[in-house]
């Protein structure tokens, strides 16, 4: 087992890793920028090294500075957390070169899943369903129609140089292909100067459902069931839950197997998440694989009663997995509390927290690095806390979340607590009737 782990991260995840290390008897080293001198992770670690100024590029993203800190503290392993260098293949490689264990997958595994085209090819070989589409750019309308016949309508024509929803056209039947082809090409040319078009099957009312997996160094990969992360704003997750209200036993079995196949195809080591889009017919398609611990790992922890950071450190130290898959035994929901003003387009709201009371009680968990007197700086992401509730049923869980949110007092900065409260009262949310487009139609009532 490792003697000393350096946590190459900050905020609540750094604290999360430090806590588990303490329980495991492993010494901890925190790194911090000058802006984080008062952060809790610095106080809770056994040792702390200031590595740079506030800017991430010169601190949490600086491989030389982090390696220098590893060197002067004699750490034998590095935990990268999430974000920052967690999926940086170069960082993983450098750690290995210096004989430091990078707690996560190898640089090769990171690379295989980091490139969308390579990932898709790997998944096809592994018999994991991917979003069907054209392998290359389409030359003309005729090719588009041939492809569409294979893939099956509805399809979406997409600009290869595209973004922001531009140069995209959904086509529902063959007769409409030509007109939409011309429109998409024209828009792409105008917006990006490149009118190259490819196509994909259009997933109707997609839900974002991801499967947590974990692999050891001996070839075993297991799954820990799903998390539904469909409640997103501009592709940022706001609420996650397990089990998914849309899940069935059969679907979980199929998706779980697919996720394990994905992991085995690259001999995956560590914790990882295979993300899928699930359409209204309960057909699922591989989207991407995240080769790191995720923000919402807490939701899975609550429903299967396992410490995922501990499991992560154990497999990194060479322990063997039992080989068992895990199914949710309870219901859990997580609300991400951000320092943002939901009544002003979720504008970031850094500043000093003057008073802070987090909710407590049966079935309530709060993962946070902030406290009264703490200054939320503008340099890093706006998440200040994760509120996770668990209960026997989804309905009880929502009730508990509502009660917990009502108790959550943060003064000095605006937070997204009021948004989550309104969401808990939303009829569709309560019915479990939502997909990734849910927040587009969600109207926030004025305070």
């Amino acid at each position, binding site marked *: 087992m490792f003697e000393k782990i350096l946590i190459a991260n900050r905020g609540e995840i750094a604290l999360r890793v430090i806590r588990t290390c303490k329980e495991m008897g492993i010494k901890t080293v925190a790194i911090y*920028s*000058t*802006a984080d*001198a*008062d952060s809790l992770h610095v106080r809770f670690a056994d040792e702390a*090294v*200031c*590595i*740079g*100024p*506030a800017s991430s590029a010169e*601190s949490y993203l600086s491989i*030389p*500075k982090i*390696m*220098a*800190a590893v*060197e*002067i*503290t004699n750490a034998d392993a590095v935990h990268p957390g999430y974000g920052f260098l967690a999926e940086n293949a170069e960082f993983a490689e450098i750690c290995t070169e*210096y004989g430091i264990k990078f707690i996560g997958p190898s640089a090769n595994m990171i690379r295989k899943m980091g490139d969308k085209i390579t990932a898709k090819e790997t998944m096809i070989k592994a018999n994991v369903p991917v979003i069907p589409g054209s392998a290359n750019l389409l030359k003309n309308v005729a090719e588009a129609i041939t492809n569409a016949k294979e893939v099956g309508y509805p399809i979406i024509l997409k600009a290869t140089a595209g973004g922001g929803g531009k140069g995209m056209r959904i086509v529902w039947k063959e007769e409409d292909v030509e007109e939409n082809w011309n429109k998409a090409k024209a828009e792409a040319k105008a917006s990006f100067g490149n009118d190259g078009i490819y196509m994909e099957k259009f997933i109707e009312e997609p839900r974002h459902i991801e499967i947590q997996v974990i692999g050891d160094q001996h070839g075993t990969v297991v799954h820990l069931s799903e998390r539904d992360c469909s409640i997103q704003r501009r592709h940022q997750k706001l609420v996650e839950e397990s089990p998914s209200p849309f899940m069935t036993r059969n679907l979980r079995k199929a998706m779980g197997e697919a996720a394990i196949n994905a992991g085995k195809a690259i001999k995956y080591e560590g914790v990882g998440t295979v993300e899928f889009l699930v359409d209204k017919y309960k057909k699922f398609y591989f989207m991407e694989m995240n080769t790191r611990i995720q923000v919402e790992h807490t939701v899975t922890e609550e429903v299967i009663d396992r410490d995922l950071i501990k499991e992560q450190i154990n497999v990194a130290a060479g322990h063997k997995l039992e080989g068992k898959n895990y199914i949710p035994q309870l219901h859990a929901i997580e609300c991400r509390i951000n320092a943002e003003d939901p009544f002003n387009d979720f504008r970031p*709201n*850094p*500043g*000093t927290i*003057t008073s802070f009371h987090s909710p407590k009680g049966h079935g309530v968990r709060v993962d946070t690095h902030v406290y*009264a*007197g*703490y*200054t939320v*700086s*503008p*340099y890093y992401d706006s998440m200040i806390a994760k509120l996770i509730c668990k209960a026997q049923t989804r309905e009880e869980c929502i009730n508990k979340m509502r009660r917990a949110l009502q108790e959550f007092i943060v003064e*000095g900065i*605006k937070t997204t607590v009021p948004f989550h409260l309104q969401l808990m009262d939303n009829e569709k949310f309560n019915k479990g009737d939502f997909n990734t487009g849910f927040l587009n139609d969600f109207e926030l009532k004025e305070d």
Partner: protein
Amino acid sequence: MKVTESKLKLPLVTIWNVVNNQNLENMTFKEIQELIKLVGKSNLSEFKITTEKVDISIRTDSYNKGGKVMMAPQMMAPAALSSAPTSPAPVAPTVAPAAKSEGEETENNFIQVKSPIVGTFYRSSSPDKPPYKKVGDKVAVGEVVCIVEAMKLFNEIESEVAGTIVQAVVEDASPIEYDQVLFLVDPS
């Protein structure tokens, strides 16, 4: 600019918070009005703030009545947010310390020479050579004062100030972090 309404007398923390969040050089007239209102509501008698391009000075009624209550934080461009005072709990009015990235003035007017990187501190270029600088030596801008080694790379640290070395704060071959004080220099 967000103005935090409160039924209580506004604590200094709120004003500091607002000032910290505001790009002073681009304040609109309305925002300046809000700042004046904030200061007026507080128990300050004078509020001054100076950056490279902007100078704001606000005096309230209580200034002339005596019993001065002052706050004069010195700030640089927005980068100063990283070196904001580290005890933000509401306290009695106090002068916030000036924060600079290199060469910070101490009470005796000595300048602190700080490390820009993480690593191991060495006073000489190799074990058999004499130290670059001893206490009492003069140092010029750009002169090498020590080595900081990281990952087998030896980085020469140059002084940003001129003066006399009055103290070598760190022991030879010690691990040091970013911004750690290495030497004290008397600039006079």
